[in-house]
């Protein structure tokens, strides 16, 4: 099962198993990892599941398509960077085993 590491803004790491088919956001919520809020439950309606994706994983998941709902929502998410993604839009696959994502300072 893929292992994903979530690093809180204060540096605290959490490494958990997340089944293929779940999203990176669900992996955080189901393990109660602080720093990802997911207010809308994964419907790309709130931008509070925002994470920064470490390389080389960013190359694997890619950036949101310009003009997409995710891109629009991200444009105003708190503290965005070039490696920003909404974690509810990243589906966990075996190729992402070992991925590390970092949480922003805040989701609101």
């Amino acid at each position: 099962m893929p292992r994903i590491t979530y690093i809180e803004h204060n540096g605290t790491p959490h490494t958990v198993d997340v089944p293929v088919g779940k999203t990176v956001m669900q992996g955080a919520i189901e393990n109660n990892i602080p720093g990802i809020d997911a207010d809308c439950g994964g419907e790309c309606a709130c931008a509070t599941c925002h994470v920064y994706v470490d390389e080389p994983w960013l190359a694997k998941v890619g950036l949101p398509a310009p003009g997409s709902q995710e891109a629009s929502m991200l444009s105003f998410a708190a503290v965005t960077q070039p490696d920003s993604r909404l974690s509810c839009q990243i589906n966990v696959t075996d190729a992402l085993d070992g991925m590390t994502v970092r949480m922003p300072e805040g989701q609101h």
Partner: protein
Amino acid sequence: MSEESRPIVIAGAGHAGGSAAAMLRQLGCEQPIVLIGEEPYLPYQRPPLSKQWLSGEANEESLTLRPATFYAGANIETRLRQSVTAIDPAAHTVTVSDGSTIDYDTLIIATGARARRLTLPGIDLAGVLELRTADDAEHLKAALHPGARLAVIGGGYIGLEAAASARTLGADVTIVEREARVLARVACPLLSEFFEKFHRERGSTIVTDAQVEALEGQDGRVSGVRLADGRVIPCTAALIGVGAMPNEELAKAAGIECDSGIVVDLAARTSDPSIYAVGDCTRRPLPLYDRMWRLESVPNALEQAKQAASAICGKPAPAPEVPWFWSDQYELRLQIAGMPFEATEIAVRGNVAEGKFALFHLTANGTVQAVEAVNMPTEFMGGRRIIQKRKRLARAQIEDMAVSMQQLAA
């Protein structure tokens, strides 16, 4: 018993109750927690019940917020199919429906809201439905078989979302609305007009200014909705979506201050210092608008869960959020931020005819109080930031698409 070993009891295992339990643990609280819920299910998401549940894309498992292993591993005892039946604030005890009593250190009331019932002849006929729980959604789904004719009583969000789902599943739909327009209590006339037109174009019949007099039945099953003017709308099922009532009775009986909702402050504290209340059952301050309000939304449930958990754990309160809400109907995503309490003017950005627009509500001095965006997520997000900053803008600036939302929100 020492103070620390008495549990935090959470009465209600919906979105607010479940999130409060999770937030307490996130903030480092180590006290035992007892989460009591009347449904047979662990905390789950309700918004998809009018959409993905009906289409078959979601089920109980996919909507569950956190798995059973989370609660077990976090020392959160979950008691499902039970409810708190009485609170004794002086004794710090609650009575549970199974007859037990629990001494609590702190109590969080998260009893939510229930679908408002209409006292009408025929209300108890089979096929007369409401939509609040997963079990309700399952009954509604079963009623949307091929050839079904659904009468939707109430043109609010529940009604419109269910109507969209039902039409997509091939059912015949008639929406019966008491007011002159759908979404009368929650949206501006321009928005109501847009949604009415869209729903009609997709084949729903919408009857406004219509008072329901009775539900007619045949062999114990609903067969029609009779209006005050005598018209009868034939149906095979009727969904009643006419608002929600806060479940405040438990608090009221215990002498806790209520006012169409359990009254709380920005720390989610009730009139009793050891009792908090969160979610749809509460009436809370809205700092941006200097008034008390009952917010029925998932973002509110989450925000209040954080407020209560922070207060209980002695952590700083979270910064107040701009109230917001979303509704998906067909391929339309409506996102609303803020509330236009004192708005006198509307700026229209985008194109209403194309179904891609955002309505910004301005007060007399140009302060943006609310934004209603349809398929314009950037406008929703930017609008929310503008509202939070209490920015003043001119209508012309907002309506000019050459000015970006980033510029407007700067």
